[in-house]
């Protein structure tokens, strides 16, 4: 579990994070969402120690990162795996060497044992027979999976993912999301994902933290997020008219006003859910 207590961060005069507190739970996919510039990446980088916070505490299972010495931080970092937005694979190394790198650096295993572990994690991310390929020879989705494989090869306790679906098509995004979720549950690790992909939020968002302008604006689960009452969050989630209509349709369906697909299709063709919403429904929506 990771606890963030009153964390603030600024760069010069610009305040990026303002007094953020949250708990990232073990065994769950914890999502940090928000618009571009809301502070998601800065918060995540503060949590892994790439940035120093101006105030506040970041506690990893009882150990405060902000008060640790360099040696203690090194030890903690060996328990952290991170998937970067661009995968951050080492260009001059093959897939096998990329994944084997943490094993070479931090274990005294034999070569055969390391290769066996590499093959295990490649198997886990469904990437057999890519050992000898270089990052430039594989697709974006495959790079992400290699990135995940490298992040989990040392069996970390904490997994950080910075926009893991960036640049991927919706189908591949779902594959990556599912993989991260399964790994989280299988290994009972604390996973923190930065994203603004609503598909990811709805699929795997077990604990969601919404940031707005560097502040915590909302916190909840994927079950609660659709019908939340926070205006800024709703503007973020339902940025497109299509999604706003989809939400209204869901509301009408729950109220029994729409009872079949033909009904729904007719309403959408005629101009959307607002035609059907009565005053009471509009009040509920607000």
């Amino acid at each position, binding site marked *: 579990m990771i606890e963030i207590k009153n964390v603030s961060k600024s760069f010069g005069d610009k305040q990026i994070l303002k007094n953020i507190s949250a708990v990232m739970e073990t065994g769950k996919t914890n999502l940090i969402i928000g618009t571009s510039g809301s502070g998601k990446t800065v918060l995540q980088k503060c949590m892994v120690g790439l940035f120093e916070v101006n105030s506040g505490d970041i506690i990893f299972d009882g150990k405060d990162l902000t008060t640790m010495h360099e040696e203690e931080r*090194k030890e903690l*970092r060996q328990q*952290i795996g*991170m998937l*970067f937005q661009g995968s951050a694979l*080492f*260009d001059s190394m093959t897939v096998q060497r990329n994944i084997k790198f943490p094993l070479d*650096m931090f274990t005294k295993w034999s070569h055969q044992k390391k290769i066996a572990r590499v093959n295990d994690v490649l198997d886990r991310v469904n990437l057999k027979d890519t050992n000898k390929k270089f990052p430039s020879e594989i697709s974006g989705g495959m790079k992400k999976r290699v990135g995940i494989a490298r992040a989990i090869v040392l069996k970390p306790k904490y997994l950080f993912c910075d926009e893991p679906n960036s640049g991927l098509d919706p189908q591949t995004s779902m594959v990556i999301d599912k993989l991260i979720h399964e790994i989280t549950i299988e290994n009972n690790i604390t996973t923190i994902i930065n994203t603004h992909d609503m598909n990811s939020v709805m699929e795997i968002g077990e604990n969601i933290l919404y940031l707005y302008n560097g502040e915590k604006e909302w916190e909840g689960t994927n079950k609660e997020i659709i019908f939340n009452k926070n205006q800024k969050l709703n503007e973020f989630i339902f940025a497109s008219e299509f999604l706003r209509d989809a939400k209204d349709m869901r509301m009408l369906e729950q109220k029994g006003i729409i009872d079949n697909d033909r009904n729904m299709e007719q309403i959408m063709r005629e101009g959307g859910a607002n035609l059907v919403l009565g005053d009471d429904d509009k009040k509920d929506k607000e």
Partner: protein
Amino acid sequence: MKLFSSIGAYLLMMKGMFTKPENFKMYWKELMHQSVEIGMGSLWIVTVISIFMGAVSAIQTAYQLVSPVIQKETIAQVVRDTVILEFAPTLVCIVLAGVVGSKIAGELGNMRVSEQIDALEIMGINTRSYLVAPKILGALITIPLLVILAMALGIYGGRLAGSFGGILPAETYDRGLLMNFIPKNVWFALVKAYTFAFIISSVSCFYGYNVKGGALEIGRASTTAVITSCVLILFADYILAFFLL
């Protein structure tokens, strides 16, 4: 103010290099890799430059030494001393500032921009120690060797130019090489070589490691690294000559 903050950041980077390696074997591998990259990667250019540098030096010295009173062996002495004192350490290192310096700055800059350095830091690796130190040590090992090679090839280039150009026979050249030889010159050249090697590698590492931005900034960092290295080399050349000769 920016100059002082850059100097401070440079010194902090240098200080950050001195930590216990997480895995000595991996660091040794990286050092060997960098030494080969810097040494073998520059071998051809150093060879070509040195031979031609010596050859041109011989021809131009012969052109200037028109008095019949001056022995032909003097040409060899001038070529020898010019190559050892200046051409081999300074000229070759200025070329290496471009070849090696831009490679180092570009490599580290690309790693910074694509978050590979952050990935290494997250793994718990001190990147100043793992990425920067092997480059500096590799340069300190290989660049002086390249300078020694440049001295030998430069002198040989002069011999070739002298004999093929009919300026002076090889035997005369060889005799001239042994006359009035001052061993201290070689020591001075090596002091310069080590100093310049450190400048080239550390300055390039600094600019590459601290890149912020994208492809344009990587290019800028590379160019700035080369220019800064060249200026510092020339400045150090003057200081060393002033104090040691």
